[in-house]
């Protein structure tokens, strides 16, 4: 029998709907695969085998009963993993933190609701850096996620579980969140496709906030087409999120287009690891051979992007995470005989080191004395970047850059040096600061380790993004799955 785990979402829907195999058969293989290799990968914080099987049975029944195509759904049977900072009703949502270790949300995030309605099967929750703060998934209460291409290497982060699970064929597609590159970074490191949509294109309702003004939920998959399928399910306006854009999301397609005007942002390639830079320049050649006009271009304010990003992200985080005081929900801890300030302090000492670092720094930059020096300046950088981008998008349809300036690295290599760790986000944060959509697609390998190409389009130009990514994917033909 074919390995159903290696199918794309498109093939799963096709197979299930046409009775080539049942959803139960497929999901059983997925669960078997998880059982077999999860000990090496550690992509999940929780696997919901019972829930997955139950949903698979109901999908098979719908198909047997000949129910309406719409009711069966556009993602019928597809195994999807959800990053564990996105709320799922009845299934724990822990943010990989002690603080929320027993938390069960009373509601589904909008994306989860939409995925369920589309017939997707939620197989479990995926590992991440605590509260999505990190670039390697090493800061998880449940241990680091391993890179399926070499388990001694980090999977990237913070959506490390989302990327690794797809690469390791533990689920067919997954959902991550991207605050400063958290979808694209692990997508690049694990050689899968990962999208950060335009800010406001996908509802954040149910995404546990790290930095509200920067983050978006985004899909990950083995192919561009798979991320498009998921986007068609989750994108659109949501009454529960007033930052969602009120124009309806179009139905995205994957037709590849030629004659695209492409600019390579040279500031984002300068000084990066040579293997990565080499790979990105050869990606330029791929485009040029496909009748695209491809040239180097410059974006000067990129220089300030990283500082701006971390200032804003930490400021928002310090406020967002204030609610975790163990009063309304949390973990077992007796408040008897504590004065409330002391109780707050005791509870909040349970955050991990990186989370504490960001809360403290964020608190500092928001203090009235430093607000103007840091936070306000950081916001001005956003405006500068936006202005520069809007000028660039008058000349180019697409801007490209590496997703990550480095190859995946070994565990522990950067964890003790926060600044070194923060530096690797240099190429991804521009999209978050400006709200534009960006996608990471597999671009090649060096020393057996994946390299991702980052493709960025103007606000709401996801369709152009998908067309460019499809063109690259079909032309570059990069190897898909690791051997495990």
């Amino acid at each position, binding site marked *: 029998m074919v390995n159903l785990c290696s199918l794309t979402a498109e093939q799963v829907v096709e197979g299930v709907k046409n009775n080539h195999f049942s959803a139960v058969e497929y999901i059983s293989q997925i669960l078997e695969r998880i059982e077999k290799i999860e000990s090496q990968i550690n992509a999940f914080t929780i696997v919901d085998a019972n829930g997955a099987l139950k949903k698979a049975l109901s999908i098979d029944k719908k198909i047997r009963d000949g129910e309406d195509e719409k009711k069966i759904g556009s993602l019928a049977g597809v195994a999807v993993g959800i990053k564990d900072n996105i709320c799922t009703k009845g299934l724990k949502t822990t943010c990989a933190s002690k603080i929320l270790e027993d938390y069960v949300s009373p509601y589904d995030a909008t994306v989860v609701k939409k995925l369920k309605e589309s017939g997707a099967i939620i197989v479990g929750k995926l590992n991440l850096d605590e509260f999505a703060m990190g670039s390697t998934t090493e800061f998880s209460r449940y241990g680091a996620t391993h890179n399926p291409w070499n388990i001694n290497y980090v999977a990237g982060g913070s959506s490390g579980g989302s990327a690794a699970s797809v690469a390791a064929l533990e689920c067919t597609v997954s959902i991550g969140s991207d605050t400063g590159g958290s979808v694209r970074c692990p997508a690049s490191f694990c050689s899968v496709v990962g999208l950060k949509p335009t800010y406001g294109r996908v509802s954040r309702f149910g995404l546990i906030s790290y930095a509200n003004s920067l983050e978006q939920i985004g899909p990950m998959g083995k192919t561009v087409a798979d991320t498009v399928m998921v986007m068609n399910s989750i994108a659109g306006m949501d009454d529960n999120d*007033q930052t969602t854009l009120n124009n309806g999301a179009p139905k995205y397609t994957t037709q590849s287009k030629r004659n695209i005007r492409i600019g390579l942002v040279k500031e984002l390639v300068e000084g990066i690891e040579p293997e990565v830079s080499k790979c990105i320049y050869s990606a330029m050649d791929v485009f040029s051979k496909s009748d695209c006009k491809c040239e180097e271009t410059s974006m000067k304010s990129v220089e300030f992007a990283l500082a701006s990003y971390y200032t804003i992200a930490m400021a*928002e985080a310090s*406020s967002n995470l204030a609610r975790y005081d163990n009063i309304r929900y949390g973990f077992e801890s007796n408040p008897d005989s504590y004065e409330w300030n002391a109780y707050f302090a005791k509870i909040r000492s349970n955050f991990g080191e990186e989370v504490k670092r960001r809360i403290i720094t964020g608190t500092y930059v928001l203090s*009235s004395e430093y607000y103007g020096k840091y936070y306000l300046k950081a916001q001005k950088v956003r405006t500068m970047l936006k202005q520069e981008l809007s000028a660039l998008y008058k000349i180019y349809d697409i801007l490209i850059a590496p997703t990550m300036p480095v190859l995946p690295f070994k565990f522990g290599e950067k964890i003790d040096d926060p600044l070194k760790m923060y530096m690797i986000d240099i190429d991804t944060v521009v999209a978050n600061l400006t709200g534009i959509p960006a996608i990471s697609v597999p671009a090649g390998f060096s020393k057996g380790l994946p390299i991702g190409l980052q493709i960025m389009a103007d606000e709401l130009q996801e369709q152009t993004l998908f067309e460019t990514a499809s063109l690259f994917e079909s032309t570059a033909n990069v190897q898909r799955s690791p051997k495990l």
Partner: protein
Amino acid sequence: MFRGVQNYNMIDGIKIGLEIHCQLTSLQTKLFCSCHCDYHGKLPNTNVCPVCSGLPGTLPLLNQKALEYAGLISLALDCKIPNETTFYRKNYFYLDLPKNFQLTQYNVYGITSIGIDGKLEYDGIDEEKHARIRRVQLEEDPGRLVYENNDMDSSFYTLIDYNRAGVPLVEVVTEPDFTTPKDVRIFLNKFTSIVEHLEICDTKLEGSVRCDANISIGEGKRIEIKNVGSFREVEKALSYEITRQKTMSTHEIEIKAETRHWDDTRKITKQSRVKEEEQDYRYFQEPDIPTVILGNEFLSSLKTKMPELPNDRKNRFISDYKLSEHVSQVLIDNKWLADFFESAVKIYSSPKEIANWIVSDLMGFIDENNHHHNSQASMEEKRSELKVEARHIAELARLVDQSNISRNTAKMILNQIITTGEMPSQVVERTNSSKIDDKGLLSEAIESVFRSEKSAVSDARLNSKAANFLLGKLMQLTKGRADPKIALDLIKKKLIEPD
């Protein structure tokens, strides 16, 4: 601690500013979720949802109607309305804050209030005065903390009820323009009447209006007075505070900037138990609520929705009903009274008579109560105990106008129906208290008075003023029911008749 002798008059240079919070009780839902705005009488923590209890992953959804209400207050207070508005997070840890930050508005990094730079005129003690309004803004109410025996200091536990969390508050901040506590009370009465006329806040609901005050005297530092539960108490708290600060100054004790709490039972201000240090609230714009463009559209839609305000209503009472300025003022100071008056006038068009009944008699029944209880809630209680409606007063006025009963009798009837709710005409019929105006009957009665008061009759024949004595005797005889006008005429006629 001590400093040199001060040679200024302490009363000069009193500066009082107010920070008023009023809940938009007329809204259906909370400020950022769809929970009920009215939490009164609900079991603790039942009027909550994932949003207002601050569950992870939830986002605030701005109640557009709340913007409109805050806009109406702003216009009524003569404020400028900025072109756009946003919300800020005020970050601090406290048990009653589900998110450990409060969504509010903040003008330091750019104007975000719904209204700024307004003013409200009021009749001060000696002269027409006004207070400048610094800002009008929207914010969410925190939850409610419940202590054992209502006493934070001695309580063994603290219970938290989030039913109130997220209820929309309008905060109105004045400049320190008041110089006497009495002016503050007059201002607050006027403010209450405005809010009631806008029909955005039921000021009688417990906790729906709160007022903090700040006061400085001369060179003294600014003292904040918090925890004043009703507008009526503000005047008392301020008077107490002025006496306290004057005494301190007389003893050359330096007045330090501090926050004091009003003790409602002991009627004193006391230093806050927890010393409130200079807090840094780390304000920043709430990213989850997009900037709202108000613009001309907002302004013109407000203008179409603006109801008649107390000032206009007062002028209308003076010009249409020919009421005095004073009576008009008394009526419009309390929307309930003004509405009562107008409904009564609709039933029986005798505005002056009706206004008189309301202002000099009906109000007495409501006010009487306030000597015993202080809260506005008890005033409302008393008012709901009143069985008298507009139709009662209208009928009373009609009966008096048509001379069926005397004013004295009418007052007695009012006394009675206030608790029974009977119609005045029913009372008249039941107790037969109509005046005796039948001349035949009166003549017979006068005859018997003349017989028993012979010497008085003789006197009266000489001195017409003594006729009043005979009238008094007649009244005694008829238990006051004789129509005095007719009776006096008959008496005088009889006096000049030959014996």
